[in-house]
């Protein structure tokens, strides 16, 4: 029985969350396997001659009842831009489900989820899946300004929301690692999870290591295949060069050579 699939899906929604982030929802005519936060799909960019490879995107939400999954696509370059132009009613080909999930928190954990840039989706997904009471889940989102943040108010029922923006237009001014929930008492958390740009991940890992708090980060290395055959997406770890696509994208910071 296959565990991974290549399939064409119907695009049922493509809406702008702000100027650069789009919510893309696709529907399947068959059931989805169980999908966990951190896992991703590899999407074909159609009608784009110069784009040869697929583009990986985290799975954001899964609606098993209606066979719908969604992704948040941030415009970075040519491929992501092209994807945000897909029309409702058209088809998207995806390879799925790829990668591994996070270590789920246990019922007595207090967790901090940090998302930045294109890394917001898996953090929101994990907040929903954690099964913890709201008071034990803090989400900290970072962006350049208010305009770059997306509205995630519907996640208030799963977590306390905190914002950092570089210009101070939403939440506290500065990077996520300068935010009070991060600087005040990192040790009040038993688990920290993060997804976002490389520099942000490294800064978070450094502090979490110093505070000796369990921390997992989801990496976004460049990929060719997405299923462990090309060895292009490697990350140096204490266990050697591992594939972000199959051994990750989630890694414990103690295993990374940062």
């Amino acid at each position, binding site marked *: 029985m*296959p*565990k*991974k*699939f*290549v399939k064409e899906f119907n695009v049922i929604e493509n809406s702008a969350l702000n100027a650069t982030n789009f919510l893309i929802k696709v529907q399947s005519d068959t059931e989805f396997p169980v999908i966990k936060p951190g896992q991703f799909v590899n999407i*074909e960019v159609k009608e784009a*001659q*110069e*784009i*040869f*490879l*697929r583009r990986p995107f985290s799975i954001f939400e899964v609606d098993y009842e209606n066979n719908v999954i969604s992704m948040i696509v941030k415009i970075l370059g040519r491929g992501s831009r092209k994807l945000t132009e897909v029309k409702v009613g058209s088809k998207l*080909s995806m*390879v799925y489900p790829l990668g591994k999930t996070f270590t789920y928190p246990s019922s007595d954990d207090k967790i901090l989820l940090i998302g930045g840039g294109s890394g917001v989706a898996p953090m929101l997904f994990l907040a929903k899946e954690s099964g913890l009471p709201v008071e034990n889940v803090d989400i900290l989102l970072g962006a350049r300004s208010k305009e770059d943040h997306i509205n995630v108010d519907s996640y208030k029922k799963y977590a306390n929301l905190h914002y950092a923006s570089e210009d101070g237009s939403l939440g506290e001014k500065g990077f996520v690692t300068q935010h009070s929930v991060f600087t005040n008492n990192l040790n009040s958390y038993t688990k920290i999870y993060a997804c976002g740009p490389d520099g942000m991940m490294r800064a978070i890992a450094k502090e979490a290591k110093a505070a000796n708090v369990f921390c997992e980060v989801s990496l976004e*290395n*460049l*990929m*060719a*295949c*997405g*299923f*462990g*055959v*090309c*060895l*292009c*997406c*490697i*990350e*140096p770890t204490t266990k*050697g*060069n591992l594939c972000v696509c*199959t051994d990750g994208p989630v890694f414990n910071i103690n295993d990374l050579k940062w």
Partner: protein
Amino acid sequence: MVDLKVKLHDIEFKNPVTLASGTCGFARETAEFFEPGLLGGYFLKGTTLKNRDGNNYPRMAETPSGMLNAVGLQNKGIDYFIENIYPEIVDYDTQLIINVNGSTVEDYIALTEKVNELDKINAIELNISCPNVKEGGMAFGVSCPGAEMVTREVRRVYDKTMIVKLSPNVTNITEIAKAVEGQGADAVSLVNTFLGMAIDAEKREPLLSTITGGLSGPAIKPIALRMVWQVANAVKIPVVGIGGIMTAADAIEFMLAGASVVQVGTAIFKDPMIPVKIVEGIEDYLKRHNMQSASELIGALQV
């Protein structure tokens, strides 16, 4: 009923579609998508005597209709393969071929001796054409004396089917093909990747950690096809055709040009199911053309 079976030297492939080394891992990874027995065979990830970490990240750059890679033969070494991977894949109902790599002739020999002991492995592919390693690799494959020496020495210790994989980064690939044929190669496979380069103009930096890397994908297909055609006409041993195959039509073109078997590589990154579709497409082609057997395609180009 059409017969998809083809022979390469003295081994049989249930169909001419195989996967290229370095693009199908150790066959287990593609088994998550489809039954390995659907394909003719797998050329497993390039293996060396000892563990190799490969090159630094970034190892990949997308190019128009293709990609550059600079993986540098990352693998855990032959002993790890024999102990941990071989038992897991040994029962796959398909040909499993080990892609053998060395920095020195002694490496190639020591490695081949170990592979010779593996019952289920009916052939090796001698890689003398990897552009992404500093020593050995392509250095052997770009001169006739180098290619001859490795082929001759490995031939002494290996008694099953020996396929030598050729580099396209040479002035005249038929000379190298003839040279390895003269030293006892049972077949040649071609092509490996073309040495290429990509630059980020904004940052004024190379896109690969190694600056240069190997180009693969549909971008190389016409050149690979020309080389397969030339080599098939120059040697008597069978040829394995490789380079940018994306569709059944591509695979058939390589066979018409003289390939007995084809390898699908980079295409699988774009769609892991492509190899299975190619098998179906070849069968369909044979029916449409009232041909009985896939082997009728080999070298059937009308000029």
